């Protein structure tokens, strides 16, 4: 393992984050605060408790997940798209590094950033609503696993995209709707039976459900299933990335 290369890529990517620290932090913190003001306080005060959890507290895990997904995808896709776009990717391609090392560097940095932001949003949320975390270990596990998985997914998008539009289109057209319909703002049991079934095809449901379980000990779907589905999605992303590097897809002509 060329650890120096991994560390060079990782630090390079983290430096990019810290260079734009204010906007990196400000945007998720502000938008989470807005969600809590609107849904937590304004609307939430009129909502009934869900399974014994106040509505404001109920949406905390979902909002963190929402932010985690968006940030992981955008960080990782941008991280690999930019060198492709500017041409500086030549250096990584010509360096004595394996695909694994490149992926650990880029995806690791993107995932680290999202985990940090996730924790930051968690702290922000705590300022608005009281809540407890029943299974802190699993909470962190879900946080990290989701950050890695969606950073891998973002990495794929960053390689697939051949322009800025394509870079935006999947997060905008697919991920955001799935995230909103993934049970962040409601419990699946509140849906009609048909929709409950359809919703199970939405991978985000498993993330949000599992994550919420780590907070309140309640879940829409079985926790093992949640964890398993997240792992499965991650392995799928790993397989696609392995294929990308094996064929040189969009990286080498």
């Amino acid at each position, binding site marked *: 393992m060329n650890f120096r290369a991994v560390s*060079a890529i990782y630090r390079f990517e983290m430096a990019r984050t810290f260079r734009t620290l204010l906007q990196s932090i400000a945007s998720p913190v502000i938008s989470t605060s807005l969600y809590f003001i609107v849904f937590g306080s304004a609307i939430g005060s009129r909502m009934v408790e869900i399974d014994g959890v106040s509505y404001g507290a109920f949406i905390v895990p979902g909002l963190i997940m929402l932010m985690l997904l968006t940030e992981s995808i955008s960080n990782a896709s941008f991280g690999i798209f930019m060198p492709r776009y500017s041409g500086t990717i030549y250096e990584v391609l010509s*360096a004595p590094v394996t695909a694994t090392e490149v992926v650990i560097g880029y995806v690791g940095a993107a995932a680290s950033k999202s985990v940090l932001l996730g924790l930051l949003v968690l702290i922000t949320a705590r300022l608005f609503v009281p809540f407890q975390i029943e299974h802190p270990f699993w909470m962190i596990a879900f946080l990290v696993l989701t950050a*890695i998985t969606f950073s891998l997914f973002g990495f794929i998008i960053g390689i697939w995209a051949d322009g800025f539009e394509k870079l935006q289109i999947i997060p905008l057209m697919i991920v955001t709707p799935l995230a909103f319909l993934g049970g962040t703002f409601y419990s699946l049991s509140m849906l009609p039976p048909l929709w409950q079934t359809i919703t199970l095809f939405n991978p985000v449901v498993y993330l949000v459900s599992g994550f919420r379980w780590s907070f309140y000990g309640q879940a829409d779907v079985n926790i093992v299933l949640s964890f398993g589905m997240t792992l499965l999605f991650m392995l799928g992303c790993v397989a696609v990335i*392995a294929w990308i590097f094996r064929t040189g897809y969009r990286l080498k002509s």
Partner: protein
Amino acid sequence: MHSSGSGSRADFWITDRDGPGAIVKEKGKGRGKGAMAETREEKRAPSIITVTELSKTYAGGFRALDSVNLDIRRGEIFALLGPNGAGKTTLISIICGIVNASSGQVRVGGHDIWREFRAARSLIGLVPQELTTDMFETVWATVNFSRGLFGKPADKALVERILRELSLWDKRNERIMALSGGMKRRVMIAKALSHEPAVLFLDEPTAGVDVSLRRDMWAMVRRLRENGVTIILTTHYIEEAEEMADRIGIIRGGRITLVEEKAALMEKLGKKQLTVQLQHPLADIPEALSDLPLTLSADGCALHYHFDSQGAQAGIAVLMRRLGEQGIEFVDLHSHQSSLEDIFVSLVQAREGAE
């Protein structure tokens, strides 16, 4: 975080390896010409790069390289000369791992660039043709990044030396996007040198570069060569190849048409021409001089005497005597030695004539 199954296969970064290369290697060895070239090479200096039967067909079906065979000797400056679209950048990009080969084999320092890509690539520094740099990073950060990427431990003193040598030291804390084009080019050179490569590729290093950078660059190339670095450069500027290179390869249409010591090339193909400016114009070359390689200019005012660089002295003496015998008076004499450019043009023309 990662499936170790794919991760432990160190080379899944690499594509289409093994198969074609291995077969071609056997074929290449069997060839009389290839084998001869190899033994000759070994006697002089061991090859640091060996390209065997390398071909590249781009996705669109365009064949950019066609069975290229090439040996680069350790420590030499090799100039790859050829018109636009000849395949220079493609060849360099394959050796450096940026473009996939279609078939063939490449070894760098004895390491197969696909199977032993780590060892092979560790030896190589590349300054690509296009100006591609980060924007927001500082010069210092980007050069240190390159060194880390190639697995080398941080070495501030070394990076400082490189930056000073390239007149970048004062700019080390500036963002790259604030630099001029010439300065960006220097940054790219610094990045390539940061990991102390044994082989340096310079792809059209002086295209669109100001005079001072060009001068600095050639000084640097010479210094690198003194330290044993092998340098392969492509250029449009034939004077540069002529001035800098030890050997010259000419590539056209994806084929290497000639590889020769520069001196030998000049010697072999370098024609000299002596122009004799006449006092009185001639209508024709006198019958008595018809055995000499002479041509008369259109206005009849000048005689051109053509000869090879070899045995020039005797030839000129004979001409002078014969002109004197014929009572032809002349007012001026000047000789002209063909440059690499002339050689290049004549080679290209000869080839086009043959096609």
